[in-house]
Structures are given as structure tokens and as C-alpha cells.
């Protein structure tokens, strides 16, 4: 099973920005119900895109520095990073098909 990985302020640079494969970062918090709703879909995506895209989760409550750096003002907030740069962003709970469209675009 390929599961989403947990990243924080300290590991963000190495794990996300230096990654050779695109990384989907889920900016979330435990008090946010739509974030919890998105969690199983992200687990499915981690499995389906294993080896091609890394799925990572960052708790904004514990990691305010990274959340502020990327101007996060609403969660769930999913940003795809490619070669250290954000290439697409989805704010709010969205159907899986929409997330897959963005992930497929990032792989091109």
C-alpha cells in the first residue's frame, strides 16, 4: 500500500521542493471536516499514482510557516508542486475526477 506521507516545516524543502517526481500537498487541519472528507480520496490517489506522484499531507496548525509561505487562507487546499514550483491548486473539497485531471496534467 502506498500511503500519503506526512511533511512539516522542516522537511518541506527536501521532501516536496527537491522531489524529482511531482508532489501533491494536502494542506489540512484536524478541525476541518472537508479535509477529513478528502482524506480517503487522497489515499486512493497515493495508491493509483504510486511511483509517479507523491501525495503529502501538511497540517497547517502545526506548520504555519509553510502555510503562510504559500498564502493558504482556506482548507482543504491541494497544491501540486513540480520541480519545486506550484503548478496547480485546488481549494475546497472537490470530486476525485477533478483531482485526477490536475494530476494527469502535471504529469505531462
Amino acid at each position, binding site marked *: 500500500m502506498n500511503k500519503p506521507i506526512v511533511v512539516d516545516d522542516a522537511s518541506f524543502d527536501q521532501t516536496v521542493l527537491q522531489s524529482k517526481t511531482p508532489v501533491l500537498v494536502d494542506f489540512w487541519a484536524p478541525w476541518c*471536516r472537508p479535509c477529513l*472528507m478528502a482524506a480517503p480520496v487522497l489515499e486512493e490517489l497515493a495508491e493509483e499514482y504510486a511511483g509517479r506522484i507523491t501525495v503529502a499531507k501538511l497540517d497547517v496548525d502545526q506548520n504555519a510557516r509553510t502555510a503562510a509561505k504559500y*498564502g493558504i*487562507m*482556506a482548507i482543504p*487546499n491541494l497544491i501540486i508542486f513540480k520541480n519545486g514550483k506550484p503548478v496547480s*491548486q485546488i481549494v475546497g473539497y472537490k470530486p476525485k475526477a477533478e483531482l485526477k485531471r490536475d494530476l494527469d496534467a502535471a504529469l505531462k
Partner: protein
Amino acid sequence: MNKKYEVIIIGGGPAGLSAGLYTSRARLNSLLIERGVVGGQIADAELVENYPGFPEGISGAELGQLMHQQATKYGLQTLLTEVTGIELQGEKKVVATTKGSFTAKAVIIASGSERLKLGIPGEEEFTGKGVSYCATCDAFFFKEQPVAVVGGGDAAITEALHLTKFASRVIVLHRRNQLRASRILQEKAFSEPKIEFLWNTVVEEIEGKDKVERLRLRQVITGEKSTLDVSGVFVSIGLTPGTDYLKGVLPLDAAGYVITNEKMETEIPGIFAAGDIRLSSARQAITAAGDGVTAAIYAEKFISR
């Protein structure tokens, strides 16, 4: 995972969980499909004070978990995934999800509703940049900043009260001259020093550079226009049913609500609807639970007919 069930329930809020409790106790092989986390919209509420049996109130998330625990105890199975459509194959109902298809003799649709948007310039552009539809999710990002809440119902006032824990000022903008929210919430809001009200006021535009900076307002009676400087705007003007996946399967009203009779039956035999998704629902956790039970009882009758 088993693919055949007697009853499939779509949605894990009070309606779906109550339906699942009854179908499971009726010894019907039941599957509940929920997009992500059980509890439904009530799970957003910090404290639910109007659900009978909890005189001190209960957190919405805990209420949802307890309902789920109770239904699971009698055999309800839960699958966390997204439903993409329902198809009829003779008497059989096929529920398509992102984890494959499942069949059932009866389906209870209890997938609730989602937030309405304002439909004004700037709203789409600044979603996630100061425009929010979930105060419990996003209040945290507006510490010591002024924010507006648009709406006057229970949800809007609950959100305004929640925002006072973070924001410097909370301005409630309401298109009428009085709130729709229950009296007890109104009393709380009126006595909260951080909350201000602008009556008979609508938002015409949301403006800013990279994020929300101000709202353009119009007083609906005098027509007078003004601006309001805020960092965030929380939209809570009502709900719309999430029934896109039911289009072409079931008759829906113009707004998208599912039409049922008093037995929660839809036009298609064996498909029931319960809770917020249903036209003329009172949109309360307890009425949703009641709908779910009614649907479960008539689903059982349908299966054993």
C-alpha cells in the same frame, strides 16, 4: 469486498446513519457509502444544543460518531468513497462509485446538501483567498483581522459566533432587517461585542489585489452604496442539494431537490430519499434522522413485499 447488498444508503449524516441503524436491525444486509467522514453537516457544529437527549449539548462530530457506532453495532457496513451515479437494471439498482459498482434491492439517498454561492464578481476569483464557505475550517487564518459573514440563518450566526474567537471584528451582512436564526442564537450574537450587523445589505462585489481587501455593498431599501474593508468573507446564505449524480435518474425540482411522498419514496420503486436532499425537508439533524428511519421502514417493506 461484497458487491451485493439488500440496501445501499448514500450519505453518512443523521439521515443515512439513522436509516442504517434501522435497516441493520431489520437484518437487511446494508452498506452505507460516505464521501469521507461520517456525521454530515452537523459534524461542523461545535455544539449541538437542539438534538433531544443531550441536555448539555453535544459536539456535532461526536453525535455523528455515536450514531455511526450504534448502527455499526448492528451490522451496518461503511465504505468511504464517492458515488458517481445510479443505474437501474430491471429491479436491481446499481450504484457506481470510484471504488467500483455495488448493487442493491433498495437505495436510500441521504447525501445532503452543500453551500450556495453568492454569484457575484470576485467570489470565484478570491475563493481560498479570503472568500470561504466554512468558518470552522478557515477562521484560523483570520486571527486579529476584520471579517464579514453574509447571511442571517442559524448557520450564518453560528459561524459569526465561531469567528469571534479569531477575528478582530465580525460584521454580519443580511439582506433583510431581521435574522432568520433561532432566537437563542440571536440573543448570543446580539450580546457578543465583536459582532456588528449591517441590515438590508447585500454584497455586490468582492475586491482586492491578491486577496480579499474590501466588499462593495448596497443598502437594498435606500439603494445607497458603500464599501467595507475586510480580510475575509464567509458566505452562509443557504444550501443547495448535491444531486448532480441523480440527474436523469430521478425527478428533481428546479433547485435540484429530490421529490418524495410521505413514505420517503421517490418515483422509482425501491429508491428512497431522506434528509436535507429531500424537497420540503425542515433541514434539521433530528428531522433528517426521522426521514432516515421512515425511509428504512418502507425500504424493508419494499424488499419483503
